[in-house]
């Protein structure tokens, strides 16, 4: 490859600069669809090129969506109201229902937050990086902090997206439901922050690629794209990531926390699927439907390929390994395979159910090896309990 030849022989720092510039451009280039790339470009520039998430205390994100004010209260969507009822009944209390007096030592080998079979130690060793037992424990603890930090940033995004979507959704039952989701996401933000702040005591900055996706969703004015992005794509990503962590961790407080959060997220996806199926089949032209379909596909690939914990790389290996090698190690790690499996297991059947899986796009998913998940259970067929059971039943390939 040309890039490989270019990098060969250069000092590590220069190699990384070139690689990450190409890599950032690659985010857009890898989006095979020009229209989709154009819609994402401003966020990609803000996140990857300008590094807006890396300085200052806050970033303003401006959205042009309209609040849909209901004047007649006529619409009736009983299935959605039922979800609202369930959501109200199942509210939990992040302060009361979790045992925050549990003492957590992230480097305790008996109750590890992130056990040693999660980080890609074998892949690192193959690149000549060997950590001793103590370093391994410390690295695993950092990886836990990194992962949970990203969960927290994602929840902050989810909180605002849920609020925006509640404004713009046209069904009254959807607005009621949305209000519970806003509360849910607020609570998720609370418990992840509290866990990081009081237990792990180490918090990582938001990852650039995650920032791009969140920024894109929060600033897109089309409510259904926001909705699709948040309720199906990001929620799907979250279920994959939370599920993987839930399976791996042996720390009881975190396990219980994740169990509660996963059950809420299951409801969020269910809502998204209900609303979008109705919207896509009744309101969109074929051209608009295709555009959503392409967008979902590109975002799915970004989510699969882009969460490579660069922050950990810079903290641990910047002078020992090239960024490119790091990406390769992470992409091939068994824990990543588990994450991808759990994410697509839920995502693909949901896209199919809402009508974003025509034969045309199936061919693309097939090329990316994702069609084996077709025909699986979608969110309307799964309770939070089923979901936890499926997650726990999945064992990462060794």
């Amino acid at each position: 490859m040309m890039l490989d030849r270019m990098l060969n022989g250069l000092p590590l720092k220069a190699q990384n600069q070139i690689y990450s510039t190409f890599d950032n451009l690659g985010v857009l280039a890898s989006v095979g669809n020009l229209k989709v790339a154009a819609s994402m470009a401003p966020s990609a520039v803000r996140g990857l090129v300008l590094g807006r998430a890396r300085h200052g205390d806050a970033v303003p994100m401006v959205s042009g969506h309209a609040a849909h004010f209901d004047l007649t209260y006529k619409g009736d969507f009983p299935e959605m109201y039922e979800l609202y009822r369930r959501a109200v009944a199942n509210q939990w209390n992040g302060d009361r229902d979790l045992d925050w007096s549990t003492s957590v030592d992230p480097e305790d080998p008996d109750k590890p937050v992130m056990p040693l079979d999660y980080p890609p130690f074998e892949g690192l060793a193959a690149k000549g990086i060997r950590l001793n037992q103590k370093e391994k424990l410390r690295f695993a603890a950092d990886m836990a902090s990194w992962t949970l930090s990203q969960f927290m940033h994602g929840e902050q995004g989810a909180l605002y997206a849920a609020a925006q979507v509640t404004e713009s959704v046209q069904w009254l039952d959807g607005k009621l439901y949305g209000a519970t989701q806003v509360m849910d996401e607020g609570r998720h933000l609370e418990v992840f922050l509290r866990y990081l702040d009081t237990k792990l005591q180490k918090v990582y900055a938001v990852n650039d690629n995650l920032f791009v996706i969140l920024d894109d969703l929060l600033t897109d004015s089309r409510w259904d794209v926001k909705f699709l992005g948040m309720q199906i794509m990001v929620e799907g990503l979250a279920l994959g990531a939370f599920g993987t962590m839930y399976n791996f961790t042996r720390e009881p407080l975190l396990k219980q926390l994740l169990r509660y959060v996963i059950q809420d997220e299951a409801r969020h996806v269910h809502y998204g699927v209900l609303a979008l199926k109705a919207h896509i089949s009744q309101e969109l032209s074929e051209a608009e439907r295709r555009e959503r379909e392409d967008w979902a596909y590109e975002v799915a690939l970004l989510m699969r390929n882009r969460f490579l914990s660069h922050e950990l790389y810079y903290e641990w290996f910047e002078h020992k390994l090239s960024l490119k090698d790091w990406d390769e190690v992470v992409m091939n790690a068994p824990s990543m395979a588990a994450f991808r499996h759990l994410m697509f297991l839920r995502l693909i059947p949901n896209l199919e159910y809402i009508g974003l899986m025509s034969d045309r796009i199936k061919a693309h998913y097939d090329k990316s090896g994702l069609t084996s998940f077709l025909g699986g259970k979608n969110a309307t067929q799964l309770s939070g309990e089923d979901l936890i059971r499926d997650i726990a039943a999945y064992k990462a390939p060794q």
Partner: protein
Amino acid sequence: MFALGRPRRILIPRETGPSKRWGNPQPGHAPRPVRVAELRRETADAVTLVLEPEDGVMPAFRAGQYFTHCFEIDGQVVRRAYSLSVPEGGGLACTIKLIPGGWVSSHVHEALQVGSRYRLIGPTGDFLLDEGKGPLRFLAGGSGITPVISLIETALERDPQRDIRLVYASRSEADIVFDQRLRELARRHLSLDVVHVLSQPQDAWQGQRGRLDSQRIRGLLGADPATTFYLCGPEGLMQLAANALHAAGVPAARIRQERFLAAPNAQARPSEPQEILFKQSGRVVTQRPGESILEAGLREGLPLPFSCMVGGCAHCKLQVLEGEVALSEPNCLSPEERAAGFTLACSACATGPLSVAA
């Protein structure tokens, strides 16, 4: 304008450590979520709930102890104590008798299903096994058998030949809870003797019948000073038995009792905030409308002891120095404790400015 030259921010600075907003969490404060794994009917009005902890961690408990079960019924959290009806290490289960018109027991009998979830506080209780080798005598009445079977099974597991007698008062044959389980135990352990006493037996009943009075109780339990006695059943029966044993010279320390007190009446709580001074820690805490003294203190991070939260264990007992409280009844405070100005923080609230010794 490119980010490349800018130092990369990896960690978010936390110079001041954890935020103050979280307060100081108390151990055991968080109720433990459980799931009903099995519902087993024992008699026409008793059902056993087999529970599974949701976090997969089986809580440690000792035979004879109980958990406080927190159900959500009609949007309200209702707490009731239920003794464990399994031996130590034998899983998690309790057996609940339907009380006509009872709020929680009818909920359990009518609405609970496999898969239902709720929360537990605990375990707690000092109705515990005597760890010596001496004989054990149990008197159980009705649903009072639950902690008793836990104690008997645990005792026999540790010492299969321990000298044990159970006197178990029930209404009729059909009302004997754990009939089969007790027979099986007695078959396997010759040192266990089970005596059923039925108040309304069928004509064909060959065993003991009629009401238990002091004399019969003494006759059935004996009064041996090396024996430990356990009483659990209706209040009247327990009182009778305790008096009979005392009169026969059994030292009080050898008599252990578990009272299935009815849950305290939910009484009206002040609708205005009240200030409470906790003298020992020097803190003034504002009790919010609806809160107990205990809830207000814990919310503010005071290290207050508690256990059952339903007025049954006295772990939360504290002395009122000044001011008035409203205490829910019934509860486990003795007349002597009341006279000395004690109250139960879990079951009482300040009705005006209050100062307490804790």
